[in-house]
Structures are given as C-alpha cells and as structure tokens.
C-alpha cells in the first residue's frame, strides 16, 4: 500500500506545472478557443522536446518507457491548467492503441513521428447517436477485392481539422451481428473523400464532423485484425477513459483551489464568506468529492498497470468524474457570485468544458450500466 508519487512522478508534475503556467496561461487558453487551429504548434513542439508526446512509448520509438501512472500525473496537470490542443486525441486515443495493437511496421512508422511532434492523430468513433456502443457504429468499410471502402459520418472527432491521421472505427460485418464486425482503420486525413467540418462548441476545442465518402484504404492499414475492432475499442475505452478522468481530476482541483481562495478573500457582512458555515460545508463537500475522485483515478490506473481486469473501477472513476466536475463548477460559480459568471473570470474556462468531458468516452448512464453489469446485475 503506497499513495506516494515516485520521485520521477513528482519531477514530472513540477515540470508540467511550471511549463504550463508559463506557456499556457488563461489568456492563451481563450485565444486558442477563438483561433482557427485551436492549438499552438510552438507549444506542441516544446511538448515533444520535453518528451511528453512519447512519454509512455518504448525507447526504440523515441519514447521514455514511462508507465500509465506517469501519464496520469501529466494529464492531471494538463487538466488543472487547461491545455488546449490535440495531446489527448493523439496520445491517449491513438498512440496507445497503436502501441498495443499495431504491427512492427505501423509502430515504427507512426510512434516515432508522434513522439517527435511531427504528426497529429485523432479517433473517429462517435456517430450521430453520440454513443460508444458497437451497435451505434454504422460507418461501413466494404472490401472490394483490393481495398476497403469507407462510407459514413463521424461526429465529435477532436481536432480533426488539424489531424494528419485518423483511427476510424467501422462496421465491417453487419452480418456477423453486433460486436463481431468492428474494424479499426488507419486513415490519412488528406485521403480522397474525407470531408472535415468544425463543430462550434462552447469550449472552442476543435471538435469536428468527419464524413467519409468512398475513402479507400489498404488491408495493411487495419489496426489489429479485421473484425476484431471490439478489442481495440475496449482498450481505448479503458486507457482513454482513465486518462480523461485524470484530466478532469486536475481540472476539479483547480476549481476548488480558486473557489477556496476566493472564499477566504471575499468580505461580506464584515467577514470572509469562507467563515460562514454554509459556504464552508459546500467547499468541504467539494473537497471530499475531488479527493475521492483523485484516488479512484489512481486506483483504476494502477489496476491497469498490474494487468488486472479493471472495467468496473474505470467506469466508477468516469461516472464519478462526470458528476464531480459538474458539481464543482456549479458550486464554484455560486460561491464566486456574479464575477464567476463572466467571460473574464477563469472559472468559465472550466465550466465551458464540463460537457466535453462528460460525453467523451461514455456518459454517466453508460458507465453506471457498466458498473451494474460488472456487479453481476
């Protein structure tokens, strides 16, 4: 039993906090929300130089061989600061599945380039339903004897407008029924027949609709095996969800810190509002929720590093993260009063991202259902 961060994790945490406070203050966050690209290529290169992009890749592919818990610590800091850009999409949603399911050639081709900051990736999975069940995936890929031909539409694809490659989850076996026929393809963003359109979200976080019309991909661009995409999808759901939860956990910590400081400074009725029991108890509830979330995320990540089945604990972390983030932001605004409701206040940057985080990789209902099934219900 040990809750302590390793020396390396503490170093990473300090480095990330220092770097982001300089490179990515909230003025910059707002600028990036408004910009066309929604990310800063210079910051991206610096992140590559710091070794963040390849943090958990093997050394032979330009990585540092760190483990998931190290990446969780980094994501926590990125969430705490708010770090716009395609880091999560590239590393968590695409690079990790390539590490786990890619063949030697794919790993050598793609991982090194990601680690060097030379290519941006995104995952195209959700469709109009906005869900993550295999039955929600209608985008088809039919084999014409030479190529797979992809047709369909994907929604909420993060940073697709600046991506070089996509992982596209397609239904390749309607006849196989349900989960049997999913396949994940590597698709160049510039391929013929790919059409990308930005969705205007409150968070200005570059989510897109991507349409595929007769897009041809070769057999060698399948990630993993044909019709075994369920495995890839499960893995993305596990690792990606833990990392998304780590990001949310960091964001919650920032909201609490901001609100707690404000409660100590803001004077009404001749005393700090933080001396009023009703405000104190709201802050304490917020704190307990957030500390609980942090431990649940570490626990789920640790289980994955042990190679233990962790589906229930991952869903527990995500369902908790969805609720805790929303509640922290709402109570945070209430305690701040009107100032917390303005564009100028940093709290809004966190508030605008509640729904992005909540619906990424499964909403609360989906995860509650997974927990219930896991308990044997």
């Amino acid at each position, binding site marked *: *039993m040990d*809750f302590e961060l390793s020396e390396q994790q503490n170093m990473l945490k300090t480095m990330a906090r220092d770097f982001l406070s300089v490179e990515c203050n909230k003025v910059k966050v707002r600028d990036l929300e408004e910009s066309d690209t929604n990310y800063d290529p210079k910051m991206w290169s610096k992140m590559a130089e710091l070794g963040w992009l390849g943090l958990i890749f093997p050394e032979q592919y330009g990585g540092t061989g760190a483990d998931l*818990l190290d990446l969780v610590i980094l994501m926590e800091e990125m969430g705490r600061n708010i770090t716009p850009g395609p880091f999560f999409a590239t590393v968590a949603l695409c690079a990790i599945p390539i590490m786990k399911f890619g063949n030697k050639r794919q790993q050598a081709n793609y991982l090194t380039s990601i680690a060097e900051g030379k290519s941006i990736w995104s995952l195209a999975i959700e469709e109009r339903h906005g869900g993550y069940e295999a039955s929600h995936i209608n985008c088809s890929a039919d084999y014409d004897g030479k190529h797979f031909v992809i047709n369909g539409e994907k929604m909420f694809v993060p940073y697709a407008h600046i991506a070089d490659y996509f992982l596209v989850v397609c239904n390749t076996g309607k006849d196989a029924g349900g989960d049997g026929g999913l396949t994940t393809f590597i698709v160049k963003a510039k391929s013929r027949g790919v059409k990308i359109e930005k969705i205007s979200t409150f968070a200005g976080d570059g989510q897109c609709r991507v349409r595929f019309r007769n897009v041809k991909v070769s057999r060698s661009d399948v990630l993993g095996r044909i019709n075994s995409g369920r495995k890839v999808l499960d893995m993305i759901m596990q690792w990606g969800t833990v990392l998304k939860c780590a990001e949310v956990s960091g964001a919650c910590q920032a909201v609490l810190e901001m609100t*707690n400081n404000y409660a100590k400074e803001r004077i009404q009725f001749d005393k700090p509002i933080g001396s009023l029991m009703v405000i104190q108890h709201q802050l304490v509830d917020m704190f307990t929720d957030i500390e609980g979330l942090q431990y649940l995320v570490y626990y789920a990540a640790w*289980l994955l590093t042990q190679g233990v089945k962790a589906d229930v604990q991952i869903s527990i972390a995500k369902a908790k993260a969805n609720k805790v983030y929303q509640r922290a932001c709402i109570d945070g605004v209430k305690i701040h009063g009107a100032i917390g409701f303005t564009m100028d206040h940093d709290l809004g940057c966190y508030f605008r991202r509640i729904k992005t985080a909540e619906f990424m990789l499964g909403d609360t209902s989906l995860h509650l*259902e997974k*927990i219930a099934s896991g308990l044997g219900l």
Partner: protein
Amino acid sequence: MDFKFGEKEERLREEIRQFAGVELAGRNTIAGMEEESNDEDWEFAMSMSRKLARKGWLTMAWPKEYGGQGASYFEQHVYADEASYWGIPGTSMGVSGIGWVGLSLMLFGSDEQKKKYIPLIASGDPDGVWCTAYSEPNAGSDFANIQTRAVKSGDEYILNGQKIWTSCAHRARWCWMAVRTDASVKKKQHGISLMIVDMKSPGIIIKPILNYAGVHIFNEFFLDNVRVPVTNLVGTENRGWYHLMQSLAFERHSMAPQFFGSARRILEFIVKYARETTYNGKTLASDPIVRNKIAERAIELDTLKLFGYEITWKMSRGVIPVYEAARNKAYCDFFMQRLATTGTEIIGAYSQIDRASRWPRIMGLITRLYMMFPGLSIAAGTDEIQKNIIGQFKLGLPRAY
C-alpha cells in the same frame, strides 16, 4: 503507487474468514450494532470477545508488553474490514475499552492504572468492559461545556452531575469520564479532567434511553456524591481536554475500514436480492432504476475503501490524521444513509419489519442499518462538526463558530 496488501495481511484475512465460518454458523449480524441491547446478544458477544482475545486479535494493535501483538496498521485495517464483513460480535466490547481507553492509558495513565486495567481489557472478560461518559444535556457538539463537577476531598474526588447518551453504561464495569475539576477558568476547555469511575460505586444511577426502534444502547447517567479515589485521575488534573483530543483520534481512524466491511457485505446481499426477486415477471435486476441506484452505491463503496486505505497508509508513515479522520467519519455517515435508503427501496414494504418477524428480507440487516444510521451519524461527532474540522484544518478557512 501501490494499492494492495501484503501476504501477511491476506493470510490474516483468510484466517478471519475461517474463524467467522466456524463461530458464526447460522447467525447474521452487523458488527458493532445493538449487541449490548439484549442479554442473549450480549452474552454471545462476550463469548466471542474471549475467543478473539485468545486468538490475539482483540487487542492486536497494542504493543506486546501490554498483551497485544504490535500489529501493523495494515493488519489492523484488514482485521477491522474482514471482521465487520462477517459481523463478528464482541470485537469492541462496548467500544470504549478496545477503542481508546487501553491506548490512552498507555499514553498518559499511571503505572498502577496500566497494570490494573489494561490486562482486564485484553482478557475479553466482562470485567474489561468500559463505557465512556463525555456528553451532558448541555454539552453535545459544544463538548467543552461540561458541568459535572469533581471536588477534591482528601484522597477522593466527589462527583455530582449528569451525563447522557452513555452507550453501554448498563453493561460496563468501568467508566471513562470527563469531569470539571475547575469551574473558575475563563476558557472552558481548561479545568476538565479525565477519571476512571467504578460503575459499582454508590451514588450512580443508570436509566435506559430506548432509541426510536426500541433498542437499548444508550443511557442517562446520574452522579450523586460519587466518591472516586484520586489515584483514578488519568493524566494531569485540568489537562483532560488535551488528553481527550488524543483519545478521540483513536476513535475515528478505524471507522472507514469497519463500515467498509459491513457495507460491502450489505451491497452483495442487495445485488443477490435484486437478481433473485421477480416483480411482474421480471427480476428487479433488470430494472434500470434499480441498476443505477446500486451502481451509484458501488461508486461510494470504492471511494470509502480508498479513503480508508489512505488513512491507514498515512498512519503507517507516522502521520497523525486530523482532517482525514473527520473526512472518513463524514463520508461514512453520508454513505450509510445512501446505502440504507437504497436498500429499503429495493426490499420495498418489507423494509418496515425487523428480523424478529416472520417475514424479514435480507435477514433484517437493511432494516437495522436504516433504523441505526441517523444515530451513528451523530455519535462520535456529527457530520457538521466533522465538516467544520475539515474546513478549518484542511482548507484553512476561518473558524465558523
């Protein structure tokens, strides 16, 4: 980071499981609940205390020189969790002795007191049963407001006043009592002392207070010229408040693993019940509302587990938990309420009837938890007091009262 116990702890868990299988065959109990209420349950609890004492588990936390095993915090954690899971009665002998009197005496008791009282507790015998008298009619959350007077007269103190909500006073051989030895102080925290009171002393009157479920746990406690030898003063006269803060810390740390143990068993029963019970031709488990509620409770259960792990780990590193203990107490209270309420909603109208009836569901365990949780959330400091502690000591907020 690492979230597993060692082999030694896992072996202990297995041993406790086997012990419970043999000793509790056919009984279904929730640990620490109501065992002092009726004679039959109390006798069974005491018979278990003696067995636990022989196993060396009853006081495993104590150092070897005091008849303990010097068990690590991790072993204590596993014991608290697993014994509660099986609902082994008698693990606390009315709580006080095992929970804090022994440990407090080791810290600030006299040699004579240590020699006399510690082995009695460790034996698991009825002569080692204690109660604790802190609360008074006008000293609840504002505990420093106690008025029960102890006036020195030669080599005795003479005690007059009233205590209330004294759990287990009707079973206890000794009482761990806070009294006012100096009424002239400006700050009411000063002038308090701790004493050991022999429950057989003349002038003590114990009157039962039944809770709303008709269960006899706590009591009114009247003192009319009760004589206590000065050698029964614990620690330093008028410094009792500071000794008490230490005793209260002992009281709070084991709460999370204990309730986690009970709660994980109850949740297992609820899942089983939902799978096996049909309503309108469908199992309860197929109802999305039931599924959601149970999943929510599972999230809370895991959160409590990790809060418990964290405090145990911190104590193993020499940290004295302050806000952590308050957080765990408040979280237990919150979760107990949720779990009990969900449980009653799932067993439906049967949640009105107790285990003694012809038709109990889940052996009446849910019902008992439901009838108990408001009381448990007040005992050992209300949620509100715990949240004040967290606000002040963790979030650095100004005192609210």
